[in-house]
């Protein structure tokens, strides 16, 4: 237990609040659909009390090992580059987040989503749905086998293309840690015109890009990409930028 009781009240973990300039803003003018959806008023600070420092610890019984392999969910195998996507879920204090549910979804190798709203002229793959789930192990490690998704066009601006990406959803151990994010691939030529990527503060964009992991490729089978996901920790030491010389 990280909390304690005392006569004066409850002592609860307090989760890191990163400065706004380190975080993706909720709205971004170049991402057109935020114009009518991103709240215009500044949010009100909500202190971390019992509801915020707890959260659903789900997954046991909800996930099978097969859910982590997106290439074996149909009678045949999907087209495209088979890849292993693996990494660790950690918090910002460096601690593993074990037994936590990770959900992913993505387009197929041609950049087509199996969804009624996506009907651009790239074929669906009858052997690919693009949904995966897993629980991290006792060391916070996760691994998926999938197909490298293709880029896909959208209507945000003229000749707009999303860089290849996999959507990730994580619960962590507390309501404060809940994260929905996107993982990108190194050397993608499309970042320059993608407002969803560029909405991330410049110094943090690299955190969204996976690393090609030659050591984890499986000979004659699959390439591999490694991507650690860092959730908010409870250490309240203020984050220091590279410019700061001293520890307070």
């Amino acid at each position, binding site marked *: 237990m990280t*909390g304690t009781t005392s006569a004066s*009240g*409850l002592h609860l*973990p307090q989760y*890191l*609040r*990163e400065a706004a300039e*380190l*975080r*993706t*803003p909720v*709205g*971004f003018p170049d*991402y057109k*659909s*935020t*114009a*009518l*959806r*991103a*709240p*215009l*008023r500044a*949010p*009100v*600070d*909500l202190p*971390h*009390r*019992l*509801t915020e420092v*707890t959260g*659903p*610890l789900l997954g046991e019984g909800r996930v099978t090992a097969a859910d982590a392999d997106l290439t074996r969910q149909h009678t045949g195998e999907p087209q495209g580059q088979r890849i292993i996507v693996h990494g660790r879920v950690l918090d*910002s204090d460096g601690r593993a987040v074990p037994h936590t549910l990770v*959900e992913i*979804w993505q387009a197929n190798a041609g950049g087509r*989503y199996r969804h009624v*709203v996506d009907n651009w002229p790239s074929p669906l793959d009858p052997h690919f749905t693009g*949904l995966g789930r897993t629980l991290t192990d006792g060391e916070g490690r996760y691994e998926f086998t999938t197909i490298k998704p293709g880029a896909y066009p959208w209507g945000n601006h003229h000749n707009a293309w999303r860089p290849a990406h996999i*959507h990730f959803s994580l619960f962590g*151990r507390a*309501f404060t840690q*809940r*994260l*929905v*994010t*996107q993982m990108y691939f190194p050397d993608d030529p499309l970042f320059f015109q993608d407002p*969803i990527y560029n909405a*991330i503060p410049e110094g*943090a*964009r690299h*955190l*969204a890009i996976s690393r090609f992991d030659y050591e984890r490729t499986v000979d004659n089978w699959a390439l591999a990409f490694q991507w650690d996901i*860092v*959730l908010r*920790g409870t*250490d309240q030491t203020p*984050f*220091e930028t590279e410019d700061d010389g001293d520890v307070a």
Partner: protein
Amino acid sequence: MTQARTTPSATVGPYLSIGLTWEDGEHVVPHDTPGAIWIRGAVHDGNGNVVPDAMVETWQADPDGRFDHPDDPRGASAQPGFRGFGRSQTLSGEYAICTLKPGRVPDGEGGLQAPHIDVSLFARGLLDRVVARIYFADEAEANAEDVVLRSLPESARQTLIATPTDDGYRLDFYLQGDRETVFFAV
């Protein structure tokens, strides 16, 4: 000592239903649970139009005000059949959660919070979740003492208070505009 930087958030996008659909998502409790209520509502954008591709997630204490979680200093307490967590998409135009009304939870300052549900709202057009709370209109006394509601102006408070319906409660969320919901930085 520098900490690792956290992974940046991204929008859930328009295709969230591929990855985040749970058949039992809307059932925090089974529908035939004694005392079960439905909490419903629509999500509106800045033009007042209904958002049909949003996802609402809820997290709350059980009717005794307890959480099944090791970080609750009072001890983890599990109520059979109660998951605490709900997830509902607005494909039909509304979210809907079948749950039990939460009990009051200590506020850490010697008092009790009014019954409330923490909400995460995700959608295309939001690069990060927005966080709200659902309170209950028939808890006037508890609401008047609530440490969070008390800190808000009256008009803002009303955006978080669900009104009774035949089978539960209703609260609409307004992402922008005159009726913009109070959202929280958590």
